[in-house]
């Protein structure tokens, strides 16, 4: 993966910290209430009880109380930078992460948010967040940035990772998080690596899928097996132990951005209109394309298996 400019800068910033000193630190600006909020790119969405909470570009947080038919913008979000991940433990309490290393928390179902962490002096974005309960949570991001909390986000601790097999230091980008049934947390990463932790993020091990590219998303299927999404239409399936990885045949060439599981129904979406649906717990997938080849960026399935889709252009019209 080529975080080229950033990488050079980070090396320089580490060796010559004085050089990166800015005359004026970047100021955060609260997200504006926008008439076109539902057209902002949405990058992650979760259920908060009966409510859909989606986060995305420009600090836009969208809420829906009718399973995704209509959305409104959250009342108060203290940042206007891109939000990339969101996690809720119940209908009220949730966390969102994003660029500038931002971590926000809400206690009112996503209506208003407070800053828990922000670091704009280094360009190290967070890409996903997961909370096990109201106290314990994990956030991941660029160059193996791994943060954990034991107190509901009041304090966040940077956790160092062991280097991946064959490497000298841990610098893989951690792109996504998903939880297994027995408290296992998985983090998808570059170079086909899948990280897993059994102790709420304190210690991690690597699982090599054998895939060369980056894994952006993943999910645990109905039968406990793992499904991972990679670049250019790559879809990998492995056992619940993270072994026996095989590549599912796909025609679409869009990188997989998100997937949702509801019983035996599995919906995988990606860039350039990639859409794959399975009705048999992930054994067989049927491919379709979204209209205009629009890049899909987040997906949810409700209890009936009806999808709620988000794209580069925001909320997708409700589909039956």
């Amino acid at each position: 993966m080529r975080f080229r400019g950033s990488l050079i800068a980070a090396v320089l910033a580490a060796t010559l910290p004085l050089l990166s000193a800015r005359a004026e630190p970047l100021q955060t600006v609260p997200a504006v209430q926008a008439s076109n909020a539902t057209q902002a790119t949405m990058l992650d969405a979760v259920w908060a009880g009966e409510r859909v909470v989606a986060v995305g570009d420009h600090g836009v947080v969208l809420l829906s109380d009718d399973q995704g038919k209509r959305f409104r913008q959250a009342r108060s979000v203290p940042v206007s930078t891109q939000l990339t991940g969101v996690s809720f433990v119940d209908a009220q309490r949730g966390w969102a992460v994003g660029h500038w290393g931002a971590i926000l928390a809400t206690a009112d179902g996503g209506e208003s948010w407070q800053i828990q962490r922000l670091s704009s002096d280094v360009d190290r974005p967070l890409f996903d967040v997961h909370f096990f309960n109201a106290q314990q949570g994990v956030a991941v991001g660029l160059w193996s940035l791994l943060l954990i909390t034991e107190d509901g986000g009041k304090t966040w601790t940077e956790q160092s990772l062991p280097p991946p097999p064959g490497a000298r230091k841990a610098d893989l980008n951690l792109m996504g998080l998903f939880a297994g049934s027995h408290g296992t947390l998985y983090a998808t990463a570059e170079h086909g690596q899948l990280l897993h932790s059994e102790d709420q993020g304190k210690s991690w091990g690597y699982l090599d899928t054998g895939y060369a590219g980056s894994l952006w998303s993943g999910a645990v299927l109905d039968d406990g097996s793992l499904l991972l999404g990679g670049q250019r239409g790559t879809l990998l399936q492995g056992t619940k132990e993270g072994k026996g990885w095989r590549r599912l045949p796909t025609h679409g060439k869009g990188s997989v951005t998100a997937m949702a599981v509801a019983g035996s129904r599995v919906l995988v979406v990606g860039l350039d209109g990639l859409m794959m649906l399975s009705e048999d717990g992930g054994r067989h997938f049927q491919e379709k394309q979204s209209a205009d080849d629009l890049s899909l960026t987040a997906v949810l399935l409700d209890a009936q298996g009806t999808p709620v889709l988000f794209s580069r252009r925001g909320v997708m019209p409700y589909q039956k």
Partner: protein
Amino acid sequence: MNGSVKLTGIQARGVLPRVERVLFGHRRLVLAGLAVFTLVMAWFAVQLRMDAGFEKQLPVGHEYIQTFETYRNDLMGANRLTIVVKARKGDIWSAPGLKRLYEVTQAISFLPGISRSSVRSLWTPNAFVNEITEEGFRADPLVPGTVSPEHLNDQVIASIANSTAQGGFIGTLVSRDQSSAMITAELNEYEADGTHLDYVAFNHRLEKELRQQFEDGDFEVQIIGFAKQIGDIADGASAVLEFCLLALLLTAAAVYWYCHSLRFTLLALVCSLASLVWQFGSLRLLGYGLDPLAVLVPFLVFAIGVSHGVQQINFIVREIATGKSAEAAARSSFTGLLIPGTLALVTALVSFVTLLLIPIPMVRELAITASLGVAYKIITNLLMLPLLASMLRVDDEYAAAQEISRQRRTRWLRGLSRLAEWRNAQWVLGVALVIFLVAIWQSHDRVVGSLQAGAPELREDSRFNRDAVSIANNYDIGLDWLSVVFEAKPGEAGEGVPATCEDVAAGQYQDRFVWAMQGVPGVLSVASFSSNLRQFNEGYNEGNPKMAVVPIDPMNYAALATEVARTPGLVRTDCSMSAVHLYLADHKATTINRVVEAVKAFRSEYSQPGLAIRLASGNAGVLAAINEEVEKSETPMLLYVYAAIALLVFAVYRDLRAVLVCCLPLTIGTFIGYWFMKELQIGLTIATLPVMVLAVGIGVDYAFYIYNRLQLHLAHGQSITKAVEHALLEVGVATIFTAITLAVGVATWAFSDLKFQADMGKLLAFMFIVNMVMAMTVLPAFAVWLERVFPRKRPVRMIGALLH
């Protein structure tokens, strides 16, 4: 005739008779002098050429135009040419299609005035694709340098099509349905050696060397841009001559029908044409050309001339009918009409001079030439015409026939003159008041600027506008865009402040601005420095949408800025300027204003130290500046015209009643005109503003001629009702006749190929009639009402100004 008053006796001692004696005494000498002058001017007039310019349409000193001027080399200019090569069947991805595109690209590059480095198409090296590969990010030209148009095979074409799609050029360089490809180029109005581009000739070359050469049964060549637009307008404007000839013939026929004399008919036309010749000659002497957008003005001036000519002939014929010789009749016409005529023409002159208030060079040019034309009218119509008339011979038979015809015509005017009776006057004023109020109410929220897509000057079904709509429908670029400039304020970069290309706060600021603008109704899409940074950052990071942000790491930011700078029109290489291009749904003033307001609101709500947001370039920026100037100037202009009328009338008649009587019908007429504009969706533009202002100037003629007679009769002790009746009987026919003749003449413009001309024609015709109706009904009724409400303490005096 009845009630006609002989004035010659009492005027013997004034200034006017002395002038009359001198002029008429040496009439051969004077006329010979005028003839020589006309010949000299004619020699210059025939050298006059059509001449258009983009620069002279720009309001001088306007904030937006200053931005446009400052950054014209960095931004996509408003003076851009867009050419589309469209396959009539199938898509553009064929060997002949790409070859044709290559040929057209080459042909454009070698046209004069084209900035060669700005030419962009699939075939130019400045169109490259940024590809995300396993090795990273690579920029390749869309068509590899090794490919020649002669050796295109399916494989090469497929790979070009592929990289075009990958590079995101579908919708910019290739249409969305892939049936056509686009070439864009910037035009320089001035060559390096300072010579001015001849748009008319350039347009002919476009037609000949591009369209005729490369358009055939297989491919269509669509061309839009200012040069094409103004060229097409100029071509359409040459058809104006035909319309004007038609108007001339109609006028001639009408004048003949009116006076039954070939000599008088020719007299009126010759005098009007003489001043036209002088005007064209002066234009040439001043170094101006005939601007296609202002081509109607000389003919407006001509129309004014005919109107005064008819009044003169009316006077002369009336005098002849009472038994005078032609010379005596001409002399009394001269003295009798010099004052109202001068008043009327000076008012028209003032109307044109007020156009100088608009700081747009083209309008100022128009103001100067039109004022000159009107000034010449004073000589040709008030002096030359009676002088010439005095040399004609008229027999008694003609006089007798005229008297009979006059009696017949004025019979029905008696009915009209009854409106001046008190009881009827009340009704007339009541109705007028209601119409006035309705007109004020209805004309609220008039349209400023133009409404239709493409070139508002041309008709909707013109080739240019069809091309424009086709291009707008098939490409992502809109026809209307507003460019907002983010300028690093100089002088604030002290120590400790990062160099501008590392000023990541600037990128964040612009990013927020872009998001704010995307929500403004009327903004279709946005192309900007910051959105390109996002795109590049995403591209460098596997195309992951979670990395589609403006980076905040200074070195990464600067590196990406350098890459963005390779695309023209987005950022200066030193990052001292970056741009946001807002593509708009249309160029209605309301749309542009809304967007401009949104920009200003953002600018005042969120300021960024060291950065200035500057409005505005792009065609919408230029239009916004023009609209603002036009809208801002309209009221003061009309006020000046009214003030001039009031002042002149007061100076001559020394009576406030006269001022009111002359101005009120005009005001009602003006507002009815606004109502008409709104109903017909005619916007207030550079083309229609002069019409409205001038309509007042011409409309007042009728009032002057009628009021002049009214005053005369009152001075002779007649009651107001009688005076009104006599005044209407004497000049009523001439006034109605003039208005209808002029209206019919300009109404023919409604069939013109040029939309703005058709609009002007309709509006002018309407205004001629409305002002006439107002002068014939409201004016007398109002005069009666004023006399009754404010009775005079002293008797009416003779017209004072020039008599004693």
